[in-house]
């Protein structure tokens, strides 16, 4: 068995009557990207705050270890192993980007020379050299996020928590951030990523856990999750309305889209079912102008598992 970078048993947290995390089990193998996916208010940030030692889990929780250290008894060792980039910018806006980097180097007790070398290297890597001498408060959202991650990397953490790292970024910055995250794992780092974007989890994560109302409602690879929900279909499109009508009658169990002259035939996507559909079309002498197979995407998964929760693409309110 591979070593677990993060292992949490029955993680619980409630504020008074309000239960935020209701017994969450997490197991993240070293060197992988794990994504906690969920709508706003699902408890993602709370999970990150607990695992990164910011707040304490409820006593009713089971054992939690991060980087091989027990969270409750040795938080300082956990802190030495992790790096955290929270949802809200954790840079010092009053000082420059370079000063922020050197501040991190000092707090990691690096020598002056080493600190300067690492800071310069990271500023270069994250395309911040030009802005290095400007106050961080003047940076754009994408630049702040890059500086934020660069600061997190100063201490070469083995486990990195990224809490919604692309929320509020434009598409280009978002893709840059994905590239950065992929490079991190290439170096052997473990990444714990929270996101409300399904494509992001699909794109990056080795394993995904779907969090809803403080509970993990599904867990697995993106493929495994997609297989758990119905929604796969074959789409047949026709140029000839007559052929369209004839197919609808022949196959019977279809969803019609009359204006587009296309039919959706539900299927689990296996070769056997596809063969059956094609056989029936051949037998009736029907030739579709195009045939495409659709597997359910994570959107289908998300809505099926979270009980059709609201569309999770809205900006989070700023909290203090």
């Amino acid at each position, binding site marked *: 068995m591979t070593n677990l970078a993060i292992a949490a048993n029955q993680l619980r947290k409630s504020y008074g009557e309000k239960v935020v995390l209701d017994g969450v089990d997490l197991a993240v193998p070293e060197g992988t990207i794990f994504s906690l996916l969920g709508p706003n208010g699902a408890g993602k940030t709370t999970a990150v705050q607990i695992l990164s030692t910011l707040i304490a889990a409820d006593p009713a929780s089971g054992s939690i270890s991060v980087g091989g250290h027990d969270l409750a008894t040795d938080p300082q060792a956990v*802190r030495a192993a992790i790096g*955290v980039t929270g949802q809200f910018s954790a840079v010092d806006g009053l000082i420059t980007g370079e000063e922020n980097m050197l501040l991190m180097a000092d*707090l990691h007790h690096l020598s002056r020379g080493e600190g300067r070398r690492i800071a310069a290297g990271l500023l270069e890597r994250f395309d911040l050299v030009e802005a290095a001498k400007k106050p961080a408060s003047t940076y754009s959202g994408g630049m702040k996020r890059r500086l934020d991650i660069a600061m997190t990397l100063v201490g070469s953490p083995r486990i990195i928590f990224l809490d919604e790292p692309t929320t509020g970024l434009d598409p280009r910055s978002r893709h840059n951030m994905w590239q950065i995250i992929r490079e991190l794992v290439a170096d052997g780092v473990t990444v714990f990523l929270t996101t409300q974007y399904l494509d992001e989890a699909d794109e990056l994560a080795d394993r995904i856990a779907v969090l809803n109302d403080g509970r993990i409602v599904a867990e697995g690879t993106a493929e495994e999750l997609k297989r758990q929900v119905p929604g796969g279909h074959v789409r047949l499109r026709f140029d000839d309305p007559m052929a369209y009508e004839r197919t609808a009658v022949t196959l019977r169990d279809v969803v019609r889209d009359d204006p587009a002259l296309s039919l959706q035939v539900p299927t689990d996507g296996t070769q056997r079912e596809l063969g059956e559909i094609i056989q029936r079309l051949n037998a009736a002498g029907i030739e579709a102008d195009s045939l495409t197979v659709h597997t359910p995407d994570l959107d289908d998964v998300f809505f099926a598992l979270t009980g059709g929760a609201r569309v999770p693409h809205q900006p989070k309110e700023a909290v203090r």
Partner: protein
Amino acid sequence: MSTFALAARDSSTMLRRNLLHARRYPSLTLNLLLTPIMLLLLFVYIFGDTLSAGIGGGVPDRAKYIAYLVPGLLLMTIGSTVIGTAVSVSNDMTEGIIARFRTMAIHRGSVLIGHVVGSVLQSVLSVVLVGAVAVAIGFRSTDATALDWLGAFGLLVLFALALTWIAVGMGLVSPNAEAASNNAMPLILLPLLSSAFVPVDAMPGWFQPIAEYQPFTPAIETLRGLLLGSEIGHNGWLAVAWCLGLTVLGYFWSTSTFNRGPR
């Protein structure tokens, strides 16, 4: 690294951060300096004749009043400077960087210690600046020995330390900068109710005990004694007791508030 070395190293890093803030954005510190300097000029040049006549039995003597006024205003300068501390602590706590510090393997208290040491240094600098204005308009210490000067300096540092810890606590419990500024306001209003401007004897009888035993009056009387050779009496140990008491109170209040975690 031993705990102490870790604490010292991280605290000095945090101190450098705070001094960098103060140097980059000096307007807050300078604005707060204006209050004691304005009051000094106002009370000497506008109210000086009337007040000195009142204190001196009808004979106006502005030079004498400068001597009376300056020790109180030096301590008021500290009260004014630490309002800035409360504001900057409160601002700091709203920044994500504090959450980052909390997730790093650094000495927990270093964030606050950095603020406190930075604030004490700023207070000393402010006192020197206000002192320079006082000397420029004619203030002179009389018969102060080197030991008296050392005592005066020690008292000012101790007083700054005490008010700073209280101000840090006020900054930590304030939800924003405006609230921090309001909460710390008593630190600059309290000198008005002390012996800074007029002697306690000149106040209404029912109010005298309040004025006499609040933290500013014993410190002012002690500083007067050290710089001008007046009677210190029980004010010396009263001042030190106030300073130590406020320091301990502010320290425990601030650290427990900070350790309770993010707001």
